[in-house]
């Protein structure tokens, strides 16, 4: 059988763009399918009501939101059909580049112990905590490669939670006065802080300009294209090679398998011509298929691809597919800067962090990195950051906004979640998308140990603000909830033994010779850090593995 492509990649997000770049430059003919469009900066406006930090009435990256609902099962077991702007949908950006088009750019390596959580902490009752089948040393060279080929700005000497062989290619982001104030507060506590790694051009790099420190950063596209992802690095390299075909507005509906159960192609819906509103059903064949659609949609596509030989979905031989959904519990402590310390309103904003509490907390499983937050929008400040006793309307509210907007500060961190097998993605039996396909059904909730860790970290975040001299400090207790969101992970966990997961340690679906998963789905655990750099490192590693395979 002949085919126009060697590899089909489903999803042009952070991982998909890296896979395409490495494989196309390595001589493979790549078909890259992306359900969204390639959006110019001007197509993602500075809309404070519709962005990826506040999707009150939608966002500007999701194509045909009404055509692609999901079903959310609440704590009482009641199903709700939800659209993308609803928090229960667990939206990530559906566009070329994926979430990285509008992200906050934190580009962390996981801690070495994040890969061996079960060994370090044991397996709590009701959890599916497990070690990764690979360790930090396996990923380290690929972390380094991602830092250099995507472009990460950081403090090499200060970033000590994971061994580093080589400096960052870009100097760290500048510290704001309030971050310096937090760093002094941490000194009082004996906590070590440093400037966290961000995938941003702090100076011109790879042919693009530097960040201008605008005040409309996270949730928005970057006005100087200094916000780094695969969309402005590896994907252009893929296209320049002449060996990558990118098809946008292409919705994969099924991985095709042959009589022996092996993956041979992808069925998808795509426009009849580039700008046509009419979509047609197509099939494409290739030797290698890589599913890279995010933890929810990757699991859904494998479930939708059930075959006579694998009636419960591809890779679901041991009932792990779609389970162990993780994101990050995110404790936040809010406070007010003393009047003599002014917050700068300079982006990106995150410029001080500590990894003091990622591990080794007595009686607690795991922990989290803590950092200050991004530059805030006025409306988000009004909704989230006023002291809890502030009247919500009238002159008192307006005065509080005026007095406190530049004095608000918060410290927050992504808590390493303890996975639960009951937190899962399945196919909804009733609700269909615009193509008539069952939509993702999201059910389950946080493991109690995650809540305990989140509460521990909330106390540390408050402690940090108090030690720094915040005039007031407040926070809200952690709650159990279905957790996925922009950090979604875990639904196709890798494992050495096919009985323990969906894919092998390179992302190859167990029992399949040429079918791979490559995105946060592979994460056995999701670290106490923003997960994007790990997703990128895995993409480089899987791509190199494929190039080295006969």
């Amino acid at each position, binding site marked *: 059988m002949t085919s126009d492509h060697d590899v089909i990649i489903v999803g042009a997000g952070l991982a998909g763009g890296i896979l395409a770049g490495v494989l196309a430059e390595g001589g493979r003919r790549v078909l890259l399918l992306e359900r969204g469009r390639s959006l110019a900066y001007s197509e993602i406006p500075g809309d404070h009501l519709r962005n990826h930090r506040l999707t009150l009435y939608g966002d500007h990256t999701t194509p045909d939101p009404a055509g692609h609902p999901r079903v959310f099962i609440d704590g009482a077991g009641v199903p709700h059909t939800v659209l993308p702007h609803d928090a229960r949908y667990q939206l990530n950006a559906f566009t070329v580049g994926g979430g990285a088009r509008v992200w906050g750019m934190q580009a962390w390596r996981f801690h070495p112990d994040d890969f061996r959580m079960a060994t370090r902490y044991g397996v709590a009752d009701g959890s599916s905590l497990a070690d990764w089948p690979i360790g930090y040393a396996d990923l380290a060279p690929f972390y380094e490669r991602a830092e250099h080929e995507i472009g990460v700005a950081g403090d090499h000497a200060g970033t000590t939670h994971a061994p580093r062989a080589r400096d960052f290619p870009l100097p760290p982001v500048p510290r704001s006065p309030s971050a310096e104030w937090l760093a002094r507060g941490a000194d009082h506590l004996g906590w070590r802080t440093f400037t966290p790694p961000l995938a941003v051009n702090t100076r011109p790099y790879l042919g693009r300009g530097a960040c201008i420190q605008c005040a409309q950063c996270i949730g928005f596209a970057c006005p100087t294209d200094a916000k780094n992802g695969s969309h402005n690095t590896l994907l252009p390299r893929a296209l320049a090679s002449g060996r990558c075909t990118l098809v946008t507005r292409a919705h994969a509906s099924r991985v095709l398998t042959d009589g022996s159960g092996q993956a041979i192609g992808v069925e998808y819906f795509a426009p009849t011509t580039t700008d046509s509103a009419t979509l047609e059903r197509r099939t494409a064949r290739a030797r290698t298929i890589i599913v890279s659609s995010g933890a929810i949609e990757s699991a859904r596509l494998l479930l939708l691809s059930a075959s006579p030989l694998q009636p419960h979905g591809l890779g679901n031989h041991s009932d792990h597919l779609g389970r162990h959904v993780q994101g990050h519990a995110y404790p936040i402590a809010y406070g007010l800067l003393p009047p003599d310390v002014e917050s700068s309103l300079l982006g990106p904003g995150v410029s001080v962090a500590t990894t003091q509490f990622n591990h080794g907390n007595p009686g607690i499983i795991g922990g989290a990195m803590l950092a200050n937050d991004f530059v805030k929008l006025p409306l988000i400040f009004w909704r989230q950051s006023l002291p809890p006793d502030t009247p919500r309307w009238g002159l008192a509210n307006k005065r509080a906004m*005026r007095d406190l907007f530049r004095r608000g500060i918060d410290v927050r961190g992504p808590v390493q979640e303890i996975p639960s097998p009951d937190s899962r993605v399945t196919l909804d039996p009733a609700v269909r998308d615009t193509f008539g396909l069952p939509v993702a059904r999201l059910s389950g909730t946080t493991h109690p140990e995650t809540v305990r860790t989140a509460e521990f970290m909330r106390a540390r975040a408050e402690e940090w603000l108090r030690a720094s001299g915040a005039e007031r400090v407040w926070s809200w207790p952690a709650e159990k909830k279905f957790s996925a969101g922009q950090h979604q992970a875990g639904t196709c966990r890798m494992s050495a033994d096919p009985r323990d997961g969906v894919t092998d340690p390179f992302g190859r679906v167990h029992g399949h010779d040429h079918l791979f998963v490559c995105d946060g789905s592979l994460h056995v655990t999701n670290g106490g850090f923003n997960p994007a750099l790990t997703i990128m490192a895995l993409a480089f590693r899987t791509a190199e593995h494929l190039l080295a395979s006969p």
Partner: protein
Amino acid sequence: MSLTPSQLTALRSLLDRIIPADDFPGALAAGTDTYVLRHLLGDGSLGTNVLLLGFSQLDAESVARHGPHQTFATLLPTQQDALLADLAAARPMTPWPPPLAAAPWFHRLVELAHEGFYADPANGGNRDAASWGMLGYAPRTTPERAAP
């Protein structure tokens, strides 16, 4: 769908108390009423149609407290604030037609007003970036060279 003249008057008086003018422009000077109206009228869903009835109910609450013809717009600011505090605390003096209820209605209008007032001017409720000027906020996204 449209508002009656008296509903529109009540809406504007309400917004003037939710975000009053002081040394800096309030909701009305910033055009937040335009944003709220566009939201209420532009979305033909049941939820927003029901919200429109609340402006008539606001006048009914005023009359119930202060006598015939004493619509909300005719009250003193202190009287208006006291009435709104009652609504916020779910202490209406008149029966609100289900599914409308005093406190959720008022809280929704508080949300809508602040959305318009503090969002970007292109959304229509923050004319000349009036609220941003008060806060010292500006996106400052103008690059030295255009992004692709």
